[in-house]
């Protein structure tokens, strides 16, 4: 499995060593973020210790449904992705871009919002999420007009990935070639191995920073048994995908079918609420709101997550270009699965399934794409 062992051979650590890793990341001045149990879900938040992780919990997901369930073991990463994604940290939902105030004379002073002081360390990043970060990099960092704040956060983040051991009913990363194995884009990658009485993590090293971090905590070299156990975990996960997306010819399929009757059908069910775009780890759109105080002394520009499901999103002089839910849903799905390829050279979907789990009415994009394929000339 180790095509890329250039930063060192895979290692094995135990739960106590993972605790030391979290502490080492904290001591290196980073804010450590990882999975925690909150409000009946597994979300991403600040962690101090392995004790903050959702040990012994998993999730059951279906379109429009999410429930936590206890596990039979003490796995700390035994769940699939939840309502949060890492874009909440790299590309936060609400952030001030600049503020302005009048000086003593008649002039105006502008201040750019400061960069966050502490770099992040993410613990528990899944393969689909690594791909999502890579996709957001293309949009927010590597394009002609980089997003300053994104770049500042992104370039300093330390990533501890986790290979998935338990796919959800809503997962289809295999279809999107985005998982479940973390291949690139991490500093360290863990595979949680649970035996009757042995709890350990296989650690792969993805960067020099990762190698250094690992060197600071107790570890031993991985043996063949551990490597094949990790492979078995990933094979099981690949085989257990709850959903599938046919990607062959999908760009043409969607681009050639703007008048398909399925768009009317989904428009009857869709609430235009925007949840799908908010939870999608690749959706990047924002709006800018400018406000001032009544006394005309200060003003501020605040950037907020926006969504192609709002009417304002396509508002130009005279009205909204996409005034029907039909046109908004079609825009979303066609951009995500087809036009994204023209624009950024990759699909905008990584198969994480968030948009269907967190759609209040459980609209399943794999089902919508399948329905369009079923009644068109595009080969299956």
């Amino acid at each position, binding site marked *: 499995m180790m095509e890329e062992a250039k930063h060192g051979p895979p290692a094995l650590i135990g739960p106590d060593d993972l605790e030391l890793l979290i502490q080492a990341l904290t001591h290196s001045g980073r804010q450590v973020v990882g999975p925690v149990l909150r409000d009946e879900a597994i979300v991403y938040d600040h962690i101090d210790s392995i004790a903050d992780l959702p040990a012994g919990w998993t999730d059951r997901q279906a379109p429009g449904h999410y429930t936590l369930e206890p596990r039979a073991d003490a796995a700390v990463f035994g769940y699939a992705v939840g309502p949060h994604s890492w874009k909440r940290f790299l590309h936060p939902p609400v952030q001030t871009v600049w503020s302005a105030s009048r000086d003593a004379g008649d002039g105006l002073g502008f201040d750019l919002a400061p960069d966050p002081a502490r770099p992040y360390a993410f613990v528990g990043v899944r393969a689909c999420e690594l791909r999502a970060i890579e996709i957001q990099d293309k949009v927010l960092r590597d394009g002609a007009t980089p997003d300053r704040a994104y770049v500042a956060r992104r370039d300093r983040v330390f990533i501890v990935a986790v290979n998935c051991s338990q796919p959800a009913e809503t997962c289809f990363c295999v279809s999107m070639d985005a998982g479940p194995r973390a291949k690139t884009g991490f500093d360290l990658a863990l595979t949680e191995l649970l035996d009757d009485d042995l709890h350990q993590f296989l650690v792969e090293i993805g960067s020099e920073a990762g190698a250094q971090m690992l060197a600071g905590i107790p570890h031993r070299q991985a043996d063949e048994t551990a490597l094949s156990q990790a492979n078995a975990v990933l094979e099981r996960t690949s085989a257990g995908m709850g959903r599938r997306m046919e990607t062959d010819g999908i760009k043409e399929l969607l681009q050639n079918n703007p008048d398909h009757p399925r768009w009317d059908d989904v428009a009857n069910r869709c609430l235009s609420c925007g*949840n799908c775009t*908010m939870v999608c780890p690749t959706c990047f759109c924002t709006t800018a709101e400018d406000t001032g105080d009544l006394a005309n002394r200060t003003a501020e520009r605040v950037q907020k997550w926006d969504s192609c499901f709002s009417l304002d999103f396509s508002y130009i002089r005279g009205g909204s270009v996409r005034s029907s839910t039909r046109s908004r849903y079609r825009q979303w799905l066609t951009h995500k699965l087809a036009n994204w390829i023209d624009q950024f050279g990759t699909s905008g979907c990584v198969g994480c399934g968030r948009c269907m789990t967190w759609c209040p009415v459980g609209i399943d994009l794999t089902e919508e794409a399948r329905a369009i394929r079923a009644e068109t000339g595009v080969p299956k």
Partner: protein
Amino acid sequence: MAKLSRLAVWKFASCDGCQLTLLDCEDDLLDLAGAVDVAYFPEASSKMAQGPYDLSLVEGSITTAHDAEQIRDIRAQSKHLVTIGACATSGGIQALRNFADVSDFVAAVYARPDYIDTLETSTPISAHVTVDFELQGCPIDKRQLLEVIGAFLAGRKPVIPQYSVCFECKRRGNTCVMVLGEPCLGPVTQAGCGAICPAYRRACYGCFGPMEAPNIPALSEQWRQLGAGKRQIRDVLRTFYGWSDPFRRESEAHDH
């Protein structure tokens, strides 16, 4: 120094909560007092100057013949007229009378029903006069109110999003209560409150009224799948904004 804009605040059938939101603006209230001439605001000051006014904020719904006459007069005296709150914007909770016979209520509640002179219905201001902007909420949000006042003073469009509560809920990082199994009005309700209820694990009550493109039949279909009955669906829709068109149509579909 340029002449200050003249502000008036009016009240019809309502609980005063929206006007109180204005008084609740604390530090900003001083800025407001400096930026406008508060010409008419009986809740706050005994000074009651004559019109015309540059901006009239109107709270409350129209429930008497006298109200219906007065609002026309206010409109005539106001350069801009902005309604504040659910009552002024959709008839309010008192518009529940519109679904029944008001004389039955009057007979049941008052010792001397003959003293009561009221209209059959409680209606929004826009049913009587042209309204320049409707600020939704029961009560309204104070930051939004300041934004609307500031925008009208500056002659720009207020930044008041009309998308769903879900936008704010997700930005806030809440876990969706509806996906966890609780019927919620958030997806069809306009943002503005900051998704307060879901942040405390309560489903949205819809107190900010319908969002820009509410698909309530699709939402109530999902509620049925979550176990909600006809009666429950009707009652949930028939509160603060029960008389707004989209909420009314869907509650009536669950009447029998």
